[in-house]
Structures are given as structure tokens and as C-alpha cells.
């Protein structure tokens, strides 16, 4: 119950933001919501099940392109977003069947290669996808501020939905099974968990919301091209956020998303040319000194105020 309450309070507070903030703050908030969706999603496969998936960018790009193509063929925007989510879900279910028997490095590589391959495929199908030149999306008939608010609320709703799903999954049989798999896959198998089905479910969950996020993002920025939406950094950032916030927790990924975005903004403003290196430095420091996340650090200091349920 506490998780639901926390979610409701946070969502209400963030939803009130347009009343106080300017467009810059709104843009940041929209990005935080998007990051939060990606981090929460990666948490299903990477945090719960412990599989280091690099496929987030594949789902994101796939969603963005699916929605763009659907809209350019006359499908209205919101159904196109749903179509994008469905495309990502089906793709993940299919892909999961092929690569989830791999473990460790091999799984990581296979999922990384999928991103590269989708990008190359989009690049080489110019008639269908616009190829390397990218593709434009229909413009919304709204004021600049109206658009900003619309996409903010869309992304916020998606983030809330993703967190809500996390809360449900965390308590469900599926979430329980995924955590068993993460801690000891062979023991999970032996107590009756159909590990293959569970992993595929977790992998699909890690795709569906990211696909929709990609679709909303595409509508938001109006134009997408392969290097933008199939960027490997889209795969890596969620991992960093989850590492920051705590693997397998409910709100950790979103908290990590906020922290990472604030860090990014600070770096963007002050060191534009080396912001990627700065991200690299954050990762290195994080991995070497805080492998259990910033929150773990705080929790260690005050063990009574433990998070979780």
C-alpha cells in the first residue's frame, strides 16, 4: 500500500509542475519521465532477472519507427503509439526466445548486436523508413506551450504506468520468479519455475513501455533518424540509472533517472564538449565505488529507514 501511496503523491506533485515551471523545466521533466520509463523497464530484465540487456535502444528505436511509419500511413497518433508498444512487445518475445538461453557476456553481446542490426536495417530500407535521411512526423496543431504540456503529460502517464506495473510485478508470482532466477537460476529451475517463459516475460516487459516511450519521443521531437533513436547510449543510460538507484527495487530506477538527468544537465551546461566523457566518468566512479547504488549508501547510513515494501 505504501508504494501506491508514494506513487500517487509523486505523480500528483510532478503533474502540478506545468503550473509553476517554464518550458525549460517542462522539457527536463519530460525527459526525466522518459528516462524513468527506460530505467524502470530495464529493471524488469536487468534488475529483477539479472540479465544484462543492451536491447533498450532497439526497443526504443523500433517503437519510434513503428509509430512514425504507422502515422505516415494515416494511423492517428495515439493508436500509433499503442501499435509501437505492441511491436516492441512482439519483437522482444520473439528475440527473447532466441537469445535468452545465452548467459552473461554472450547475452549482453547478442542484445547489443540487435541494436546495431536494427539500425543498419533501417538505414538500408530508405523507401520504407526514410533510411539515413530520417523521417518526419505529423505536426500537432497546438501552441508551443500546449505541445510541451501535452507531451509532458503523455510521458508522465507512461512513467506512472511503468512504475505501477513495477509495483504489481514486484509482488506477483512473475516478479518473485524473476528474482529467484536472478539469484540462482538452476535452483529456480529445480523448484518448478519455467525459467525460459519467465525470462521471456521479463524481457517483453522491458520492451513494451520503452517502445511507447520511443513513439512519444518521436512525436515530441517531430523528426527521427537512426543514429538518434538507435543510440547505444539509450541502452547504457538505463543501466547506469538503475545502478545509481538500486537494482531490483521499485522506485530506485526512477530516482536514478532523476539523479542522472541532473548530473547530465550540470555537465551539459558547463562542459558541453566533454559531456559524454563526464557520463563515462560517472559510470566508472559508480561501478568502482558504489556498485550497490547511491541509495544503498544512504540505506547503510540509516538502516531503519529501509526502502522496499
Amino acid at each position: 500500500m505504501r508504494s501506491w501511496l508514494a506513487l500517487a503523491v509523486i505523480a500528483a506533485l510532478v503533474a502540478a509542475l506545468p503550473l509553476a515551471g517554464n518550458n525549460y523545466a517542462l522539457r527536463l521533466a519530460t525527459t526525466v519521465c522518459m528516462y524513468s520509463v527506460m530505467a524502470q523497464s530495464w529493471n524488469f530484465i536487468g534488475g529483477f532477472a539479472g540479465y544484462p540487456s543492451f536491447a533498450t535502444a532497439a526497443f526504443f528505436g523500433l517503437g519510434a519507427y513503428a509509430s512514425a511509419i504507422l502515422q505516415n500511413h494515416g494511423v492517428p497518433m495515439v493508436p500509433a503509439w499503442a501499435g509501437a508498444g505492441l511491436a516492441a512487445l512482439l519483437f522482444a518475445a520473439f528475440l527473447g526466445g532466441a537469445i535468452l538461453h545465452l548467459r552473461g557476456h554472450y547475452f549482453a553481446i547478442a542484445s547489443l548486436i540487435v541494436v546495431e542490426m536494427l539500425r543498419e536495417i533501417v538505414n538500408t530500407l530508405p523507401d520504407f523508413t526514410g533510411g539515413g535521411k530520417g523521417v518526419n512526423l505529423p505536426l500537432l496543431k497546438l501552441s508551443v506551450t500546449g505541445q510541451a504540456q501535452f507531451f509532458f503529460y503523455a510521458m508522465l502517464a507512461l512513467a506512472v504506468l511503468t512504475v505501477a506495473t513495477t509495483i504489481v510485478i514486484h509482488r506477483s508470482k512473475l516478479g518473485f520468479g524473476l528474482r529467484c532466477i536472478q539469484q540462482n537460476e538452476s535452483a529456480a529451475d529445480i523448484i518448478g519455475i519455467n525459467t525460459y517463459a519467465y525470462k521471456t516475460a521479463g524481457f517483453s516487459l522491458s520492451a513494451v513501455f520503452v517502445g511507447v516511450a520511443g513513439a512519444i519521443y518521436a512525436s515530441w521531437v517531430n523528426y527521427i533518424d537512426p543514429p538518434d533513436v538507435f543510440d547505444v547510449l539509450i541502452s547504457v543510460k538505463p543501466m547506469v540509472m538503475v545502478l545509481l538507484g538500486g537494482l531490483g527495487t521499485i522506485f530506485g530506477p526512477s530516482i536514478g533517472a532523476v539523479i542522472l538527468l541532473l548530473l547530465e544537465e550540470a555537465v551539459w551546461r558547463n562542459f558541453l564538449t566533454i559531456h559524454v566523457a563526464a557520463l563515462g566518468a560517472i559510470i566508472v566512479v559508480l561501478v568502482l565505488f558504489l556498485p550497490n547504488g547511491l541509495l544503498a549508501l544512504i540505506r547503510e547510513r540509516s538502516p531503519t529507514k529501509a526502502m522496499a515494501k
Partner: protein
Amino acid sequence: MTALLTLDGVSRRFGGLKAVDDVSFDVNESEIVGLIGPNGSGKTTLINLITGVHPATAGHVHFDGHDITRQRPYRIARLGLARTFQIVQPFPRMTVVENVAAGALFCGHASDVREAQAIAREHLEFTGLADMADRPAATLTLARRKRLELAKSLAMRPRLLMLDEVNAGLNPTEIEEAVAIIRKIAEQGVTIIVIEHLMKVVLSISHRLVVLHHGQLIAQGTPRKVVADKRVIEAYLGAKYAAGNPGVSN
């Protein structure tokens, strides 16, 4: 008596090595069978074959009328075949009660996590771990982790329970406690296979012994008969020792 588990010519090779070589035997309903043999004789591999961790390279395993030879482990588990591991394998960062609940939940005896936790607490009571329920499994002592393995397996409501060295590394008092629990489990009608190197324990609880050596079944029968068997002594102490001790029969 009907055979609950039947092994028929089961073999397993790893490369050129025959880890289990043409092993056949039955386990009857409500029986306690001791599976013994010296270090490296293939006992754990045999358990892995029965539970589907490794597929058998030849032969058949039947359990309660089902051919489980090439079934996935989770399906075999759901049929009512549970095991513990020699090196205990808890879910280390979950609490004790969650570990046990996992057993209840995924073998289909609980419809949701909450019900599974309730069932788990009963089993913790039974194994004397109730006080530890909410601690992370990794913080338990070895003896308690072994009991946690037992509780987890029991929560699966097995018809056949295979215990792989549940007493290894325990002190005499802990062993006595563990043996008492095994007896209680057997009283509930669960069929049990114990792998055990402590001969005193095996002799005191088993109805029947099966002896493996170099992957082959070299003897089976009542405990008294088996431990006096020349081939068994040879397997444990070497041929010369067996030859030099005429007190040994057969």
C-alpha cells in the same frame, strides 16, 4: 509395494568419462533409500539425471508412471520430485520465508505470493526455523541453511525427496537434529533418497542401500548386508585392505 521411481539402464557420459554407467534400480513408495559410494562415484550426477539437470545419454527414468527421462527440471519438480543440493543453494538475498514460499508457489500449491508465504511459515515451524523467517537467507549458519533447503523442498509437497549430503559439515548435535527432521518427513509418507557419507546416519535411517562405485551400481540390499559386502569395503578402503581383513564376509 509399487515402484514410485524406476531407473532403467541410466548412463551419462561427460566427454570420454562415464560418470554414471548403466544404473538400474527401483524406489518404492514410502521407502527410505540410502545412496552411498566413495568420493567421485557418481551419486550427485545420478541425482542430476533424475531431476533433469543433465539429460541422460542412455536409459530411462520413470516417476509415478511418467517418463521423465528428457523432461525439463521445472516439469519434473512439478510432478512431485524435490531435491536438496550438496552445496546449499538458497536465494541468498531473499528472506528465509521467501525462499520457502518460492517452493510452495511454483509447484502450484499456492495461488499467490501471500498464500505461499503462509504455507512457508508452517514449514519453517516444522523445521525449527520460524525465528529466522524474516532474515536474509545468506545470513544463516550452514546448519540452518541446510534446514532451509529442506523446508524449501518440503514446501513443494514432494512425493519423492532426494537429500544430497544434508549432513556434510555439521556437528554431531546438528546431525541428530537433521536426522530427526528426516524421520518426521518420512512419517508423513514422503519417499526419500539420501546421499550420505556418514555411514552411521545412513544405516540408522535407510530401509535399503544402493552403492555406486565408478558410476556403476555395485551392490544393493539391506544396510547390514551391504556394508559387509566385500566389493563395498574395497570401494571405500581399497582392495588390499579388504583382502587383509578376513572378518569381512562375501
